């Protein structure tokens, strides 16, 4: 805890020094973001880039000690961490906000910080009664459309920064629950895989349940037959009423392409 406080004190001093810079240095720093922007890798190669850390503000931050799984480099950027070309993270501890209530506004409203599509305020809760600080930060992030993330340990904060970096190119892989095949052990793997996909596709329609999907597949035989069936023949399937038939038919036959001419 003392070490954290010392780091925060050093950060405070550097922040004050930054404010005391003269106009000439401000012009210099204005050029740095633009050059940094031009030197940023293109979007296509963004995955191979490193995590960029704001040197002026985050040098000596204990969070960096726990950033292990991704490579990071120093840079002159607006936010504290740049996890991608469009992802900026500002780091703030609750105790620091208690001592300097106006600091967060300069960061949230800064022009450099708002260049990003994703803007995250990473709040480190290091006080016993965080109710009022939480309320203030919640309202600030709500009004300025920032995403607020609360962490309770420094290791957790570091892990979030790593994950923001590593999940950049990662497609959302949702863990699928195994569809219950009714204890039919004789079902082949190919049939099981096809059945899961077909049921998943049909249950994406509104109000179609797994049981309904099972009945439709058994009744029509193939997905091709279901997709060519009319609404009347779908409702003729046992267990499927007119409302579900209408929902499924509109799901399959709604125009989803902008090419109306074809």
């Amino acid at each position, binding site marked *: 805890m003392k070490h954290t406080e010392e780091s925060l004190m050093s950060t405070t001093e550097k922040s004050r020094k930054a404010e005391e810079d003269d106009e000439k240095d401000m012009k210099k720093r204005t050029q740095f973001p633009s050059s940094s922007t031009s030197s940023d890798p293109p979007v296509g190669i963004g995955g191979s880039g490193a995590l960029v850390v704001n040197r002026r503000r985050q040098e000596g931050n204990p969070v960096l000690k726990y950033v292990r799984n991704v490579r990071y480099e120093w840079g002159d950027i607006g936010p504290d961490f740049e996890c991608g070309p469009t992802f900026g993270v500002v780091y703030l501890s609750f105790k620091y906000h208690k001592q300097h209530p106006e600091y967060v506004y300069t960061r949230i409203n800064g022009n450099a910080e708002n260049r990003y599509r994703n803007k995250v305020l990473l709040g480190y809760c290091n006080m016993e009664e965080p109710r009022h600080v939480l*309320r203030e930060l919640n309202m600030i992030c709500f009004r300025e459309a920032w995403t607020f993330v609360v962490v309770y340990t420094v290791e957790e904060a570091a892990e979030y920064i790593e994950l923001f970096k590593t999940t950049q190119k990662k497609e959302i892989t949702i863990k699928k629950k195994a569809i219950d095949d009714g204890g039919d052990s004789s079902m082949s793997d190919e049939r099981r895989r096809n059945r899961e996909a077909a049921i998943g596709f049909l249950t994406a329609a509104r109000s179609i349940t797994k049981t309904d999907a099972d009945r439709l597949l058994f009744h029509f035989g193939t997905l091709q037959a279901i997709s060519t069936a009319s609404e009347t023949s779908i409702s003729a399937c046992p267990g499927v009423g007119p409302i579900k038939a209408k929902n499924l038919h509109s799901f399959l036959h709604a125009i*989803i392409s902008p090419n109306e001419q074809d």
Partner: protein
Amino acid sequence: METETDDSETSLNDSFGNKDGLELLEYERATLAKTLPASVLFVVANGLGLERLFLEHLILFSDRRLLALVLNTNEHDESYFVSKLKEHNVECDPKVINSEVSIKDRQSIYLEGGVQFCSSRVLLVDLLQNRIPTDRIAAIFVYRAHQTLNAFQDSFILRLYREKKPDGTVKAFTDFPNSLSSLGQLQRLVDRLYIRHVELMPRFSSIIESELNRYQLKTAIFSVDVPTPLRRVHRTIIEFIKVCVRDLRTCSTSGKQTDEQNEEMIHVPWAATRLEKRLHDRRGHISEKQQRLLNDVASLREILQLSENMDVATVLSRLQVLKNDRTVLEEHSGWLLSPSFNRIMEDLLTIAGVTNGKADYKKFATPAKWTVLSEILREIKMLPVEKKDRGNDSPSVLVITSSEDLSRQVTDVVRYGINKMKWMTWRQLGYKSTQEMPEDEPLWDPDTISQLMRSSVDGESKSEVIANVQKTQKTTARAAQKRRKHAEELSGFSSDHRVQTNLIQFGILQYKRRKSGNEASTSQETTEWEVKEEMEEIEEITKNIGDLEAELVVSTTRERERYTLLKLLETKKPRAIVLYTMSLQTLRQIEIYRSTNPNRSLHVYWLQYTESTEESRYLESINRETMSFELLIREQGTLLISREFNVDREDAPRLKISTRDGGGARRDGAVDPRDQMDPEEELERPKIIVDMREFNSELPTVLYTKGYNVVATTIEIGDYILSPNIAIERKALDDLTQSLQSGRVFKQIEQMLEHYDCTVLLIESNRKFETKIVNGGPFQGELSRHCREIRSIFCSLIWANPKMRCVWTISPTNSAEFFSELKLSAPEPDVDRAISLKADQVECSSQELTDSEASTSTKAKKGKKWKPNPTVIRTLTQIFGIKASEAHNLLANSSIKTLADLFSLNITASHLSDFIPSTSADFIKDLSTFNFGRK
């Protein structure tokens, strides 16, 4: 007050004049006379006839002019009490109201009066929308009142009731004094139920003691010796349980609560400790070791029960199955591999007659309870039956056990005899035997032995009773609605006033006839539950039970299902009861039955091991209940009862009234146009649309207290709608973890972003766990592989939805404060629009987008950028493994116009391969022609 007492006594006599069945005991009559006008919480000892007390209240309030609502009953309770009320031919039929009853029918049923069993959600919505005539509610009964400590709906209902009718009656009933004996729990329950009086009815009360001792049970206690090796087995299993609980405590607590450990360690082998219950509540967060220990404790308790009740061979088979199961070996905490376990196996093998691998059937010790049971049955056969006792029913004998397996075994012992049963159980050990199968030596006439299977008897008739009641009340409600409508039409003709009166009376008379018809049919169905017994002719000579071919019924009673034994006692009217295993609740119910039927003779035989764990459990349960009541009596003396119930609502904050500055916050100088409010609008309270499923949490109650009108309705997108632009999805920590794993939260946030400008994910109760019994979970700083995966999915959610806002609050009060700030300058939400938004919509969005695309393209060269339907994109990405950009490209540039085109014959895999990977294209084509109908 005296007049009311006289009226209540008159009501008592009137309601019980119809039938002699439910005779009140003296203490019940006194309690009822004392508490009838007041709002009372009844805390009754376990098994001491809480159902009778509740039923008497229902009978008293079964009047068409009174409306009594019953909360927190489950299906068992409803079917039991509905059957009982019909047996007593009450004036007004009971009714069951749940979500299956439509709104119009509900409004009509409420006006009918009488006793109505309501589900909490339906009642809450009707109270909020003023569909119930609150002035006509005579009382609200809360059954299982101890559960209100963990639920918020019933408390909210009572609060609404108190707000609209301050002097209304609330009566709460519970017979779980152990749940209330913690410090402060009684006060919390009294506050939450909005009542003023607590009536404690312990077994050791002098009034109850003298009443029940008047007809003392003829009890014969048969003490059975436990063999020394079996006693050693019991002691070792208890040691295992204690070690597991101690380990669980070590890895859960941070060294506090030393006093509680010694206190609870006594009953650890039989009941779950408080720590285990709290861990079970947070089972989403417990670590692997804690989970393993919890499973082991449950398994060991089951084995202890098995070794107490069943024979040694069954226990031995069970342990061998556990030992040979690889899954169990991998997931247990190590007791199966300890030397003590080997010692247990040796002792059990000794009792079973196996020595050094050699099996000797003759050394297999007979279970001691079997021998004593045969002696008891022989004695029962010699019991004389007086002439006056014979009456219409044939005599019967009950054998009560505590589990289904034990019931089956006891039935087989009685049917086949001890020797054959001994041979059959010994054979399951797998050893060869030279002994032939012994002949049957039944202890009772096999034709009259029956085992009552709980699932086959209770399951069907219970739902039938409730379904019939609902069908009846629906017909009655429709008829009453027509009659009321007709009466309103007639009220327009002042000159025909007399004719109107006659017609109304005629309608009432007609109604009564139909009601009696319904009663007859329903009572017949209730009678079907009872097994028809043969009637014996009255003879002059006194006969023994054995000569009369008495029926022997083996039944199972559990603590959870309190009605099985009550039904058995009333239908069978047994002459003798054998308690094969002892239970406090069972004994109490038999005592009540004996006291309410003084004319019938009853003999009770009680089998119990001396100085055993079974005896310890029974004595411990008595001790715990006594201590609970003593604590409750002490706390009752210090209860804080307010003169007026606190149902005040705060005024919702307004922008004009607000004097709070932003604490130095820099804000835009621009004036919000929405600050201008109409003067008329100020008179109404602001409203918040709340989804129906959110009433399981505390937040709607807090919002209502803060002064917002809560509109309860079913909305599919979002949980709370604060304004036409603000939608909030509330997630507790457990719910957020599960939603991230299943992917549901992605869909929810996506749909909210599509329809609302401001989308908020409210993560609630995110306070660090104070007791530190769990590590904290993914959003509390725990560093484990599982939590890292959850946080990774959460980061993906943040990446995918830049416009989503996250709000983190500590408690529902904190959330309500946040809602207040948002509502400060927001217009009122549109209820119809919130209801009309549907999830998983494909058609309307596509058509709207297409229309806007067409209209824009005709006006300008560059129109609005086309966006695909998110449901379609989600389906393609999740089911077929296509990337989002590829799906976008497929829809935008290919010839596919609908989802059905994916499976049509005109589109081939090569066409699809131009836009998506060839593996996905081939999979789609294979899937479209795969035949699912053939196996």
